[in-house]
């Protein structure tokens, strides 16, 4: 068999698989651009008036009060961004002092963080809600059904992984760098802000991607902590509420699924290399 022929066969195999991989997404898009009756008649057929019907469905989604798409979308962005900022800052600070202060307590604290990674969310999910509710009652700070609570929760649940990865990276930064800065008159805070944080940039990008995808797509934590039908809804929560409680209007469901995926796909196209490297690198460590 000639080299050229085997290459052609390989290429065909990859293309067939590609079609298998992409068809589901194509069908979702195509049905989101149909009218109700068109979907009932045939789900495999192509839409007859994709653009005008697409706009109609898009407007129907935006206007739907049960889904409250714009509100859910904004909430998802607020919660994801705020949690990422909190998680990154808090995690980098903790990891730095844990590496640079070589005491027994540092070693133990780090061990506890790492060990906690085996705890599945299900093991803490039920008591978490009642515990947050009692803290709210005693302190007056609302932790359930609030931004504060869910951002705190994401900071807590992400801290172990974030500290673990920063810890590994900071160990490789030469200590002489910090000593030199200290001799030049920097205090600890300045060293962290001006020397350490800029060096952490590559690992921070990896962590933002890993944690960002997790928080944006997460469903169970918002479900138990925010609750369905609450004013603060994330996108997955709003979508499950919308789909679960009404007659199946597939074209609208498909439209809202597409709308929720588009931001992720745009991000992926823009930062493909970073995202793949970040997600794979994060797992391998």
């Amino acid at each position: 068999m000639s080299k050229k022929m085997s290459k052609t066969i390989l290429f065909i195999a990859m293309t067939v698989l590609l079609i298998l991989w992409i068809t589901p997404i194509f069908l979702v898009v195509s049905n989101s651009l149909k009218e109700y009756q068109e979907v009932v008649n045939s789900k495999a057929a192509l839409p007859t008036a994709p653009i005008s019907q697409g706009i109609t469905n898009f407007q129907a989604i935006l206007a739907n009060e049960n889904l409250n798409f714009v509100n859910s979308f904004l909430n998802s962005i607020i919660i994801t961004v705020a949690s990422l900022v909190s998680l990154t800052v808090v995690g980098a600070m903790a990891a730095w002092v844990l590496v640079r202060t070589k005491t027994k307590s540092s070693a133990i604290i780090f061990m506890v963080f790492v060990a906690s990674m085996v705890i599945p969310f299900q093991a803490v999910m039920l008591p978490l809600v009642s515990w947050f509710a009692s803290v709210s009652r005693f302190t007056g700070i609302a932790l359930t059904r609030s931004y504060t609570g869910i951002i705190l929760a994401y900071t807590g649940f992400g801290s172990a992984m974030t500290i673990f990865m920063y810890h590994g990276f900071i160990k490789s930064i030469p200590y002489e760098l910090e000593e030199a800065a200290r001799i030049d008159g920097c205090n600890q805070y300045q060293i962290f802000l001006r020397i350490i944080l800029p060096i952490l940039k590559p690992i921070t990008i990896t962590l933002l991607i890993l944690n960002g995808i997790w928080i944006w797509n997460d469903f169970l934590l918002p479900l138990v902590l925010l609750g369905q039908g609450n004013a603060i809804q994330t996108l997955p929560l709003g979508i499950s509420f919308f789909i679960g409680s009404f007659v199946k209007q597939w074209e609208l469901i498909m439209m809202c699924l597409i709308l929720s995926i588009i931001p992720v796909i745009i991000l992926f196209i823009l930062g493909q290399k970073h995202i793949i490297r970040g997600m794979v690198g994060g797992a391998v460590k």
Partner: protein
Amino acid sequence: MKKKLTSQKFVYWIFLTPALLAFVMTIVIPFVIGVYYSFTNWTGMKVTEFVGFDNYIEVLGDSSFKYALVLTIIFSVLSVITINVVAFGLATLVTQKLRGVNFFRAAYFLPNLIGGLILGYIWQFLFNGVMYDLFSYSPLSNANSALFAIIFVLTWQYAGYIMMIYVTALLNIPEDILEASRIDGANRINQLIYIKLPMLASAFTITLFLTLVNSFKQFDVIFSLTNGGPSRELASGAVVNSTNTLAVDIYQRAFQLKDMQVAQAEAVIFFILLTVLSLIQVRVTKNKEVEA
């Protein structure tokens, strides 16, 4: 000197406290009280009585739990095998020297970015909508095929991710070793068995562990695809949800049956199982490192 030391200690705790506070508030305290609750008659609101191992005895004797445990194991083993075989096949394809492989890699990787919940809804439509329209059949309507449908969807989602780990490992195999073996007369299959597979040992440890834990803990996809259904009648006469894995069973017991204390006991058992899995994993990795 002394002043500097104390200020250093001060900085240490200033930097550490926010992380510790969030960690203790969301993981340590809920975990500890969760274990305590599992030994009481906790209703989700209050505790009036210590009941010892009653909740554990109840959950261990419950047919819905026993079914979910067996199902979780079968489901995890099957999906680990399927995902890894598909992922390895894809990785072999996209590491060939061909134009455009980067595009194919990205395309296979794409489903990973979509959340499990959304994926489940997409495939519910594809099975119950498109497939039913074309063939008057949906795999989700039958207890056995529903399980395979879930494994299929998980593979579609996760294989591209695992593929990338294999791709990284395959590209790390030095070209001159393959070249040398080619000169010695090894064909592609020989190379795969005697050179590539042994050199991928550490990649296999990672991918097997990731897929195992991911399947074991899977909730979102099952919740939105089947929500545990359809029901199945066991030989004992008990009726269970046929695709209830442990993760889904805990959720339903707590929020649909409102059986909080028993659900919490089940969650503790779930934690113990995962810890055992992780310890075995650490053991295996350590052994491999010694050999290498």
